[in-house]
């Protein structure tokens, strides 16, 4: 076989990245399953079907361009997520049940 003819490599230009969300059953939320490369949205959906539902994992798929996801800054973890720590009054378990209250 002519190897040159079978070289269909993608060269320098790579396909864009897509994030895949799978819903495993009716009534459950779509859950992030991973990511993949695809030339466009239609092919991304098909690739997602092939990659993430081949063992019967899903009944619904969402594909989202990775570039459309606005992510929090991993370097700002402290400012972003540490503030609620120690604020246990934001949890119901912080409070003691008042005497005589029924059905609580």
């Amino acid at each position, binding site marked *: 076989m002519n190897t040159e003819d079978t070289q269909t490599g993608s060269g320098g230009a790579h396909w864009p990245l897509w994030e895949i969300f799978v819903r495993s059953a009716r009534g459950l939320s779509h859950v992030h399953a991973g990511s993949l490369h695809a030339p466009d949205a239609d092919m991304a959906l098909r690739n997602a079907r092939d990659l993430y539902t081949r063992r019967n*994992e899903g009944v619904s798929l969402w594909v989202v361009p990775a570039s459309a996801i606005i992510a929090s800054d991993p370097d700002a973890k402290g400012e972003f997520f540490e503030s609620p720590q120690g604020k246990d009054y934001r949890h119901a378990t912080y409070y003691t049940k008042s005497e005589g209250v029924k059905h609580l």
Partner: protein
Amino acid sequence: MSSVGTTPVVATAMGAATGDAMASATRITPGNALRPEDIAGKVAAGSVVVPQDVASYALRLGDDALILAQRLGWWVSRAPELEEDIALSNIALDLLGHARSFLSYAGGAWGKTEDDLAYFRGEDEFCSAHLVEQPNGDFARTIARQLVVSTFQHLLYNRLVDSQDATLAAISAKALKEVDYHQDHAYQWVLRLALGTQESRRRMVNGLDLTWPYIAELFDDDELIDRLEGIAVRPSSLRVAYDCRITQILAEAELDVQEVPRAAGGGRSGRHSEYLGHILAEMQVLAREHPGATW
């Protein structure tokens, strides 16, 4: 059991064998569709009788699927992108599943298993069409072949679900949904390659040109088909719908259907091109080297 819902005879008999798949507590299950093992089990138990002619017909369908699966398997680790690698191997595995079902069923007529038929028949005993043994070429040539085969198989199985033979109908019902996806996969790529860059279009046109001569054989009728009225689908009766569908897809891709002289054919009666011997050598070597080995 939706895939075998149209064939109650098979559905009830095979339901028992697939019961354990339903019992799984995990969300990821193999599902509850018709499996080749169910057919092999019924054939071995003698609960289904396979007439010779029906077996010969099942063998044709199985051989087409088997040889194409073997061809497509070559793309594993070689496709243009990882995602396409998985897509093509998924399609190959679907086809292998169809082949296993058809061969398991056909074997019932001769006391043979699917493995006996796949690994221990000679080249002239295979009755696959020449199209499926054609080289993969580049990605576009593989897609051209996929477009033709998946379109043909979709039309075929869509009719075979009404066969008087309950097992053929059940296998077709399972295969139909899978082939529907194969067809869509090929269609999507024909559009993208034909309307993509100048280079991708050149490759798509070239791939189709190499494929045209092998299409006619798929639609040939013969005495076996004559004898199986109501059980087999007459290939020639699919041609109009096939042409209609292909013309539509190619028009969308701004491509023309080429009228070319047909290749010799003869695959259905065991006359093959030089390619099949090499495919079989690779496919059969391990099983012949170690007969009866399991892993």
